[in-house]
Structures are given as C-alpha cells and as structure tokens.
C-alpha cells in the first residue's frame, strides 16, 4: 500500500534543495566579542543569611511534631489524647493577589498563548489566573531563596503582548537599577534593587503600571507572543538560567 504522506515528504525534499539559501560569508570579527563575558554576579550578602534562616525554619518544622509530642508526654494528662494532623497550609502565593487558583491544565486551556514553564525549578507549586494573565508561584527552597514572609521563591507571570513591543520601562523603586539584557536572543530588562512597581510604555505610547509582589529583583522579556516577568531573590545569571530554560507546554 502506498503512503500518501511519503509523496508530500518527497515534494518537501525537492523544495529544500531548490530554495535560494544564502551563502555563508567568511565570519567577520565583531569588536563586541572583545568585551569579556559577564561574570556570574556576586550574590548579595543577605542571600546566605536568608538561606541559613530557611534551613533553620525547615529544621524547626521537622522537629516541631516531636517537640510537641514531648510536650504532650510531659503533660501526661490522663484521658486526653493529642492528635497531630498535618496543617492545612495555604497554597504558595496565596494572599499575593495573583488571581484565581487553577491547575496548570486549566491555565493552558484558558489563555490564547503558549504557556511556558522552566526546566528548573520545574512545575510550579501554584498556578493562578488573573484575567488572561497566568501567574505561577514556587515555594522557596534549595537554590531558591524565599522572599520575606511570603515563602515564595519565584514568581512567573505571562501574558499576551499582542505584538506591542515594550519600549521603555521605568522602575519606581527608590534605588532600583534597570539594565538591558538578553534572554535566549529575546530582548529584556533586569531590574535590581527591590523595585515596588514598574511602568511599561508600549509602542503606541500607552503606559501600564505593573505591580510587583516580591521585594526582590525582576527579569522581564518579550517573546514574539508573550510578555514574561520573573520576580526572584536570585541574581541576574541565575534568573537568566531559569528564563532560558522555558519550554512551552504541549498543545491542547
């Protein structure tokens, strides 16, 4: 039996060898290559402190059931049994006004752009939908320092950019610094120093104020369809590693 797809494939093979492809010229030296590669930025001094605190809190959490059991044993009140049930914890990012909590699948279903997640730290702990914006939150942990008392280590927002390029970002933090950067070839901005909000001006002159949730740093970049924003306590290099590992989720 003949395979109809085979004929299409052979037509494509024919097309491939008849396309007017450009001939590579000899690579010319670009003086920008002489600029040394940026070194991994030194982590801010408070990060080890935060990490140490996180470990301490984790240790306390591990130890607390035994500690409480010991207290119960000490009490030794006859007829009273103390049951230890797992605490009903709020989902990661609850209270940050991130929208309605949904599953990853629901988020993919609800919006009209490809939803992405990073290879690391992998699937988000919580996903929220706010209008047509997808917000994802990861709890702080190893390699992902948490922000303040939110417990959130990483926040990732994605929304359709409608082909309107971000032209200008003004950081509204008192001491924040905006640096242009590149995410896998896409243009982006790195805003360091606890900005409270950022203001985006699009090509048509419209200005949108973006509220930030974590008192950390912000990496913002635009792909052809989506505006992406990471909020993190990490430095630029680590944030770029996460951003560059983004993969869109499978088609619905």
């Amino acid at each position: 039996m003949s395979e109809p797809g085979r004929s299409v494939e052979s037509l494509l093979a024919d097309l491939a060898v008849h396309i007017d492809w450009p001939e590579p010229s000899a690579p010319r030296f670009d003086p920008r290559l002489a600029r040394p590669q940026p070194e991994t930025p030194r982590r801010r001094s408070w990060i080890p402190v935060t990490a140490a605190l996180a470990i301490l809190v984790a240790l306390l959490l591990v130890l607390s059931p035994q500690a409480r059991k010991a207290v119960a044993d000490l009490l030794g009140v006859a007829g009273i049994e103390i049951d230890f049930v797992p605490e009903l914890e709020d989902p990661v990012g609850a209270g940050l006004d991130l929208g309605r909590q949904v599953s990853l699948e629901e988020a993919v279903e609800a919006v009209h752009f490809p939803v992405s997640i990073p290879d690391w730290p992998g699937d988000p702990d919580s996903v929220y939908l706010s209008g047509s914006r997808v917000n994802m939150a990861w709890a702080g942990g190893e390699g992902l320092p948490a922000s303040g008392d939110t417990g959130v280590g990483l926040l990732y927002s994605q929304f359709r950019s409608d082909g309107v390029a971000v032209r200008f970002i003004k950081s509204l933090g008192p001491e924040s610094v905006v640096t242009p950067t590149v995410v896998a070839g896409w243009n982006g901005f790195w805003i360091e120093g606890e900005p409270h909000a950022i203001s985006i001006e699009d090509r048509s002159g419209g200005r949108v104020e973006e509220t930030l949730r974590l008192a950390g740093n912000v990496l913002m970049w635009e792909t052809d369809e989506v505006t992406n924003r990471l909020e993190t306590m990490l430095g630029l290099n680590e944030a770029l590693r996460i951003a560059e590992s983004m993969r869109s989720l499978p088609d619905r």
Partner: protein
Amino acid sequence: MSVEGRPLIEQELIQRARNGDVAAFEELVRMHQAIALRVAVLVVGDHSDAEDVTQEAFVKAYHALGRFRQDSPFRPWLLRIVRNEALNQRRRHGRQDRLGLRLAGDRLSGDAAPSPETVVVSGADRELVLAAVNGLPERFRQVVAFRYLLGLSEAETAATLGIPAGTVKSRTARALSRLEAALSGVIEEVGHE
C-alpha cells in the same frame, strides 16, 4: 545531531570560548553559520537582513555561553538564539509573518544534493509546493520548515522552537496531512511520472 554525536572538537571549542577564546568561538560560528543563516532567512526573508541577524545573534550567544549547559546539544541552543533575534528584527521592521523563501531556479542550492527520495518536479509544481507550505498556519509551517527544509531532527526542532518533542511530532503530522490535501493534484502528477 544528538549530544552523543557532537564531535569532540565542538566540545573543546565551546569550553575554550567560555574561557574567553574568541578564535574558538569564531570556529564554532563557522561550523554553524550556514544553518544559522537559513534559520534567519526563514523568518526575515531577505538575505542581507539574515546576515545582520546572525551576526547579532552570534554576539548574543557569545555573551550567553556561560549559561550554556554542556550536557545539552549546542546547535539548537545557538539556533534558538538566532531565531529569536530574527523574530525581534522582524517585529522591529513591522514585517508580516510569512515564509520569506524564494526558489533558486534550476540550480541546486548550496551544498545540497538530491536525496534518493527526491522526485522529478516541474518548476511550476515546486512553486505550488512552496505556496502550500507558506499557506500553513505559523505553528505548522515552522515545524515543516525546520524538519524538512532545514533537515533538523525532531529533538533539535523542539529545542530550537522551545516546545516539547511530542508537540513537534503532532504538529508535523497535522501539517503533512494539510499539505497532502492542498497538493493532491501535484502528488498525483508526481505519482504518474
């Protein structure tokens, strides 16, 4: 090409380039320049613009090399940057999203050689095939272009486009069936030759 298939020399060049050896990076560029240019042409169409795109993308890649994961294949990592830079440029110029390819006439292009599967196709039919590919929705057109016009593997296409391999597979199947429907006349003609 998989990681396993990556020549040792490439790994050495990457390592040297990461340590600031510009000559090693230029050698890497030379190895991947032709395919990078083709990726850029797929997006921006114009050859001279594609040249500018690749030059810019190579500079961006050089400065991002420190974040390249050595256990992953280099070519799709580089091509992803090239494609994204090409999309940046296309958007800057407000160009339309279409396959900006043209045919080379009777001569075979570049270093291409006809594969055993290559069939005899008239120039007019070839134009129809190109038009049919161009008529596909973007998400289908790009996988067809990467798989069949650039000859990238499923895994390389997935890594370059930043989508799962399963998505490449399903989009390819759907794209081929659309092309089959659009080109039924041409397919029959070829079948009788």
